[in-house]
């Protein structure tokens, strides 16, 4: 199958559609981490990638008949993401205090 045959099932909200959205979201998040230099933008890219994983996880859960295990994993992912946000932003603030920058290229060495 090629062309429209391949694309059509993604348009009506089947499992393939959700997976394609999750994959594109992950790719955009990865691009933000690789291409942007500001640490806060890279941080937002990481959040996007976590969200993409959540979309794929919950799509699979729905199409397996509403599996509640997936929701438990989703809760744990959200808890870890919140921890990551708190500690990551604290590190960015610490870097800004010491080096007066939020550019990841300018923070390439651990020495002052």
């Amino acid at each position, binding site marked *: 199958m090629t062309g429209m045959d391949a694309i059509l099932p993604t348009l009506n909200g089947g499992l393939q559609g959700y997976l394609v959205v999750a994959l*594109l979201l992950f790719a955009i998040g990865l691009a933000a981490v690789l291409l942007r230099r500001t640490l806060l933008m890279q941080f937002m890219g990481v959040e996007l990638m976590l969200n993409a994983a959540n979309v794929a996880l919950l799509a699979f859960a729905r199409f397996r008949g509403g599996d509640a295990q997936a929701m438990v994993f989703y809760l744990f992912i959200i808890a870890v993401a919140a921890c990551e946000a708190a500690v990551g932003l*604290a590190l960015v603030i610490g870097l800004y205090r010491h080096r007066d920058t939020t550019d990841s290229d300018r923070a390439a060495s651990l020495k002052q």
Partner: protein
Amino acid sequence: MFMTFALITLLGALGMLLQKNIIVAGLFMVATFFGVAGLFLLLANPVAAALQIIVYSGAIMVLVLFVIMMLNSHEEEKAETSRPVQRWVSVALVLALAFGAVKLVLSSAGVKALDLRGAAMPQAMTLQKVGTTLFADHLLGFEVAGLLLLAAMIGAVALTKRNL
């Protein structure tokens, strides 16, 4: 409906990637998270949609925007050294990954079979079901998650406070 929320999600993410101003990029992220919450609603999962809005749009993005405004660096700084090779390699890598994975999903027979089987059993995720599974099977994990949140909170305070 699905297309609407998918477009909100992907266009918000793309706007975040291409936006020069970091505050506007953060607001694009809020739109993306609302779009993802809409997708969760369409997946018959109102619990996840509510959590998505409360935790991501509510807590995490407010924290990020707060830090952006506090640091007062709203524009991306000028690059010290331009790295054209690395940038083009990253673009090629991301595009190859996206195209390859999407092609793989669209041509997978297993995913298609799961799609047909799953469409026949529309079961909504209820808070009761989630709570029963969480507290019956994953009680230890739940407590550890609470401990992790406490540790992260103390760590964040220790990192940002000038003199404890």
